[in-house]
Every structure is written in C-alpha cells, then in structure tokens.
C-alpha cells in the first residue's frame, strides 16, 4: 500500500488542518523536482471507493496497482487539463500525452466505471480541439465521461459550445450531480463570470442549487465534488482558489466522507481538512510551477526533443508511506 492516498482513516494519517500533505514539488524547481513534474504529464488519477472512503492512485504507478488494490465499491479515473491545441515548447504533442493517459487507463487491472475530466479540455475553445479530445477518449475502455469546464473551455461564448457538447441535462453554467453505486457526485463550474482581482467563482445560483441538491442525502452518503479551479486556497496570488468555496463546503459539513477533486494547477497536491479530502490532479499536457516558485504560473518548459525522454525518468525521490499520491515510473515512449 505504499502508494495509497492518506485519507482521513489512514492509520498514520495524523494530519493537521491546512497542511498540504503531499506536494510533489516539495524540493522546489531544481532538476529533480523538474523531472518529477515532467513525469506526471500524460498521467491521471485512479480512484477507488472502499468503505465509503476514496483512495487515489497515480496512473504512472500503474504497475503497483494490483487487482486487490483496485477492488472496491466503485472505481473511476480523473484526468485533467488536456489543453488540446497547446503547441508550445512545454509540450508540442498534447495529443500524444493524452493518448498515453488513455493507454494507462486501458491497462488498469479493473476497468474503471467512468472518467472524470476536470476541465481545460481545450486550449482555446476551438471546435477542432474539442473534437480531437473526443476522438482520443473514444479509445478509452470506460465509455462514460463526466466533464466540468475550465476557463479555457468557455472562451468567447460564455461556455455555450461547452454546454452543447458536454452539458446536456446540466443546470446554469453547466453544473450537475449524479449517483453511482451509492456515491453522490457533484460537478461544479467555477470558471465563469470571473471578477477583476478575484478568484474562481461559483455564484449564488449554483450555491443555492447545491444546497438543495445535497439536503436529502443521509450523512453516511459518500460525496465527491469535482470542479476545475481548486475549491481550497492553494495560492490565491496566482488565482489558485475559489472566492465562495467556503459556502459550498459548508453544505457538506454533515457528511462523513467528502472528496474534492480539482485540476487547473497542473500538479498534484492533497490536503485533509476535517471530513474533507482535497486533491488536485496533474495535467495531461504540461506542468506548472510550484506556487510562488516562478514569476508566473505559466507552462514549465523543456526542449521539445527531451520531453518524451523526461516523461520516462524513473529516478524519483519517492518515499514509501510518506507521499500520498504516487510519483512516476512509467515512460510514455
């Protein structure tokens, strides 16, 4: 179980509130940290719910996810930030790395029930970009894919195209909920109508909907909330947080098991706060720097000819039992 996520019920999971229990970039943007970042591209997270508690595994440690670990009441995969259409030095082949992620999903010992995509499907909201992602994901064994939009998916039309493609049956800007095997999933939109100087925003209408949505569930129902921008304050200076997330989380206080899955920051982090476990997923496209470690949160670059090789680096400072979401040992080549 070296690679399992520290959940609230983890025996050694004595964790302080507000503590980031896992940060792959812990040693900064030195060479090692950089290689680790690169190795996450093309990966996703495999999630299993056991006893109502979600456990998360990095797909890049696929070989360590045995059938026993993968067994549970429900399993699914989270991928994020495909940024289809991005073609800069940080990754000139975002199609290739998304295909690699699909390959890893299909190689899992237990086929996940579905895929969650936590936004920034496209880079510039172009129809061809969405088409390409749809085409690549057709090859994934799970046929159900649930999306929430990133800010890159709603450019120019306030998300109309996004909702036509992915938001059937959703409310407002595209929020919705569904149930699978006794687990209640809530997809939220926090990338629309952003205000000058602010962070991600859910807005009153969505918050009201959410309050009603969860009201009638018993407190033993496991809850999974997913949205693009983190619903916890990762680094507000770079906009990595959501202004009104506290209200949304307040509606979830009565539940014993709440998991929040986000993307946007292109790196994995985890935090446990009371009954809520927060995860952010890496990007299938390119890494971003550790909070505050660079002048801006722009893509981290490596020469194009080195990208694939770097994705295969296995020399990683992985410590058993200390790091929750696992690091790297798979090559995309």
């Amino acid at each position: 179980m070296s690679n399992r996520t520290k959940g609230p019920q983890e025996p050694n999971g004595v964790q302080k509130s507000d503590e980031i229990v896992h940060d792959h970039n812990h040693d900064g943007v030195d060479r090692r940290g950089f290689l680790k970042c690169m190795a996450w591209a093309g990966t996703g997270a495999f999630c299993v719910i056991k006893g109502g508690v979600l456990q998360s595994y990095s797909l890049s440690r696929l070989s360590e996810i045995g059938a026993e670990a993968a067994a549970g009441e429900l399993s699914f995969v989270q991928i994020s930030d495909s940024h289809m259409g991005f073609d800069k030095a940080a990754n000139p082949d975002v199609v290739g790395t998304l295909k690699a992620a699909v390959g890893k999903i299909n190689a899992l010992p237990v086929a996940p029930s579905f895929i969650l995509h936590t936004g920034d499907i496209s880079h510039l909201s172009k129809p061809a970009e969405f088409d390409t992602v749809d085409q690549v994901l057709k090859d994934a064994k799970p046929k159900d894919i649930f999306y929430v939009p990133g800010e890159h998916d709603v450019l120019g039309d306030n998300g109309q195209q996004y909702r036509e493609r992915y938001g059937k049956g959703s409310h407002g800007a595209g929020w919705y909920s569904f149930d699978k095997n006794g687990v209640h999933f809530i997809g939220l939109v926090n990338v629309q109508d952003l205000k000058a100087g602010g962070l991600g925003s859910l807005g009153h209408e969505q918050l009201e909907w959410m309050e009603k949505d969860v009201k009638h569930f018993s407190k033993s129902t496991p809850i999974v909330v997913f949205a693009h921008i983190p619903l916890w304050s990762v680094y507000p200076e770079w906009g990595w947080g959501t202004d009104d997330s506290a209200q949304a989380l307040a509606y979830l206080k009565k539940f014993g098991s709440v998991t929040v899955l986000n993307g946007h920051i292109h790196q994995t982090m985890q935090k446990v706060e009371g009954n809520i476990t927060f995860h952010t997923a890496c990007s299938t496209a390119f890494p971003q720097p550790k909070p505050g470690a660079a002048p801006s949160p722009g893509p981290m670059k490596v020469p194009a000819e080195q990208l694939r090789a770097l994705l295969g680096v296995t020399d990683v400072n992985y410590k058993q039992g200390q790091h929750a979401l696992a690091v790297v040992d798979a090559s995309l080549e």
Partner: protein
Amino acid sequence: MKKTFWMTCLAGLMAGAAVIAMGASARMQVFAAAPAAVAAAAPAEDNPAAAVKIDNFTFSPNPLTVAAGTTVRWTNHDDVPHTVVADDKSFKSKAMDTDEGFSYTFTKPGTYSYFCSLHPKMVAKIVVK
C-alpha cells in the same frame, strides 16, 4: 522586451535614486509618463498610439497614461492565452494567443480599469488625459 527594460531603467536613472528604491511599480509609472517613447514601436495610424505588453501574467506599463484619442495596442507574449476586459465591459478582447494582440482607441479622458478574464488576478489601468 529588452528595449523596454532599458528605457525603463533609463527613466528610473533620470528620476534619481529615490524612484529606484521604490521598486517596480514606481519605475513603471515613470515609464508610463513617457508614452511617446512607446508610440514609435506601434503601427503608424492617424491616431497616436501606445503599447501594453503582456509578459509573465502581467500588463506593463501599468498604469499607462495616454492623451485622448490614443489607440492602445496590447500584445500577449506569454505561452498561454489572455484577454483584455474593461471592468465595466466598455471594451473586451477575444482570447489572445501567443503574439496576438488587441487594439482599442480611448476617446474620452478618464481612468479605465481592466483585467484578464481568464486570470482575473491580472489587473491594470489606462489613464486618459
């Protein structure tokens, strides 16, 4: 970028040590007080012109002071798209990918606050005299 940097430094030197000690925002203000120097790099049109660069998720110069009738052109030098949106929505660009730009002519004096709607922590102002 280099040219802007050296002009900024030069302006700072001329203004004396006190300005240098005040840091980046003060230097930008000094730079903004000399918009004519920027106009030379902008496309020649009937209107006077000025430029705002987007680098590292930052608009500069900020604030930019121009005369009424000036056309301001924003250019994105980042690897990710940005937008230019007035707080009051009086002007609004499409998403500008790398090296793409947006122009807007300011006809009335006033202070115009704007931001990037993708990265709303990016805020800046145009002052029209």
